[in-house]
């Protein structure tokens, strides 16, 4: 036992909330009761839960279109989240953003971007504000291995280290950038190897190992909060489905699928919980409670009204556009 038992319970609860919400969405999409683009987070539940469990609610998060795990684990309430994805007026963004643009400052979720790599420079700015204010906040920016070949990644890493910003570059290396395998998009052996190019501390970790993932996350958060600068974390994980829900993933080799199934974080975490002396009954009760919340959130989304068309003229500028 390398981490606090209560902290592990916290990680488990966040993980299962992400997992049950994701399963709910896949069911809705498969059953035809929802028709939206959805980037499933199956396989990446735990990496995110362990990272967010190391943060305070007031810490900032910048994530990407495959970000539902990050948003839920950071604390975005499910009702407004689901309503947003369904395009309802009660959504986090009044239905104007959708799943790729979830924003919820009360939970610290400042930006969700649909453009690969664009969140990293923005995270630096949030961290810069914290540095100047001395408010002790830490900013985490999530991205995949596919984002590490775009210029914004390199510019942002260099600037963050130059200014010792309280920011964590959290790469969830799920081994594929869209349909392209890691080895087919760079000759660098790992993402973490790139940290050296900027004089930055980099740590690679098995993201599906709850104890290791949390320990690495906590250390990076503590460093950032203490003013010791940024960390690049490369959390190894798997994207267990296609690029988006319903997308073909026959391009993944058979050996990869076998390896991926063996690494599934959900059964592995359940086993760890039992090792930490939680009982099957306790874990089932937690999941049942989560399921009730997930169902209630979806009901809230379904029963909510669509936004009024006058919303098109609002929030373009501070002042409303004259019709």
């Amino acid at each position, binding site marked *: 036992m390398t981490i606090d038992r209560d902290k592990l319970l916290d990680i488990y609860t966040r993980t299962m909330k992400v997992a049950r919400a994701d399963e709910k969405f896949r069911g809705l999409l498969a059953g035809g009761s929802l028709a939206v683009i959805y980037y499933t987070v199956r396989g990446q539940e735990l990496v995110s839960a362990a990272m967010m469990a190391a943060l305070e609610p007031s810490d900032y998060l910048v994530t990407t279109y495959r970000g539902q795990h990050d948003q839920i684990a950071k604390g975005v309430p499910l009702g407004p989240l689901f309503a947003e994805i369904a395009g309802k007026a009660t959504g986090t*963004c009044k239905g104007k953003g959708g799943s790729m643009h979830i924003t*919820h400052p009360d939970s610290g979720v400042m930006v969700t971007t649909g453009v690969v790599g664009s969140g990293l*420079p923005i995270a630096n700015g949030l961290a810069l504000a914290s540095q100047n204010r001395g408010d002790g906040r830490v*900013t985490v920016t999530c991205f995949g291995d596919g984002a590490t070949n775009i*210029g914004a990644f390199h510019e942002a890493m260099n600037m963050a280290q130059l200014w010792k910003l309280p920011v964590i570059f959290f790469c969830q290396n799920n081994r594929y950038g869209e349909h392209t395998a890691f080895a087919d998009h760079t000759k660098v052996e790992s993402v973490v190897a790139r940290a050296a190019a900027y004089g930055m501390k980099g740590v690679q970790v098995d993201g599906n190992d709850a104890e290791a993932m949390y320990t690495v996350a906590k250390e990076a958060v503590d460093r950032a909060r203490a003013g010791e600068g940024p960390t690049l974390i490369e959390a190894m994980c798997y994207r267990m489905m296609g690029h988006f829900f319903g997308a073909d993933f026959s391009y993944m080799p058979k050996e990869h699928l076998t390896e991926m199934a063996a690494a599934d974080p959900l059964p592995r975490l359940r086993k760890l919980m039992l090792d930490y002396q939680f009982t099957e009954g306790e874990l089932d009760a937690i999941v049942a409670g989560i399921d009730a919340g997930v169902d209630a959130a979806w009901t809230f989304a379904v029963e909510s009204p669509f936004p009024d068309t006058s919303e098109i003229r609002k*929030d373009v500028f501070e002042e409303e556009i004259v019709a």
Partner: protein
Amino acid sequence: MSGKFSMVAAINRAIDEAMAEDEGVILLGEDVAAKQGGGVFKISSGLTEKYGEHRIRATPISEQAIMGACVGAALAGFRPIAEIMLMNFVTVAMDQIVNHAAKLRFMSGGQTNVPLVIRTTTGVGVGFGGQHSDMLEAWFAHVPGLKIVTPSNPADAQGLMRSAIACNDPVIFIENILCYGMMAEAPEAGHRVPLGKAAVTREGRDCSIVTYGRTVIDAVTVADQLAEEGISVEVIDLRTIAPYDEETVVASVRKTGRAVVLHEAVKAYGTGAEISARLHEALFNELKAPVQRIGGAFSAVPMANALEQAWIPTKDGIKAAVRTTMSWKA
């Protein structure tokens, strides 16, 4: 301050005043701090000594990182100013400007906003060639969520900069290199010019020239020259290019019945096309002639002075356009 001051001093003064009032006003850009000489054009001269390197941040040559950091700081409640040395380099940061700064207020349903000023300079006429001279305002005017401002004189530069920093939405502030040395009477401290309000720089009865930035100076010269021929020209300085002061423009053209829209940017698909179209929509039956447009030629800005002077709108060209409206036979 009293007496004359330059455009550079005006912009410096506005930023200085805003920084003194609000800790959240910060400046990021290449070479902007004291150690690098206060910027290539000295706009931030003396500010590091007053406000420190944590607020005047000299950056690496990384336009995406500069713009992204300013977007992030703005989301956190700061009022950052991004200095992008030359307007053509803004293209490197387009994703941050167009996909993020402009849209985050809307996409978040109004939960966040981006009070950011993007300062940038440009200008045709100094032989900088194709990648250091463009006026790209029309690109940004096409993006909902961005405001675009350009001063034609030092007093407006001070007043517009103060308003741009105070604005709760992203503002692109375009300076013209050729105007930096322009001297004028300094206004009072704290002087502000509201965004979205045009100035009637010169009143006239026969034809309205609608323009902004450096070409305001040409328009006024042309108005003086045409007055000698008995043609009374009104000059409208938009000051805010987008969203522009349509009320003032329409009122002027309703009075004169004739209009020439003038800008330094390439004429094709320029802001002049939008302004002309809207004038025809609003005043079709009152116009005495079709609205004329004048802008740069349809090529990259050339380097050779002979070519550059042929590329840019000329005073003779402006006069000819005004005369076309005056002699139009329906």
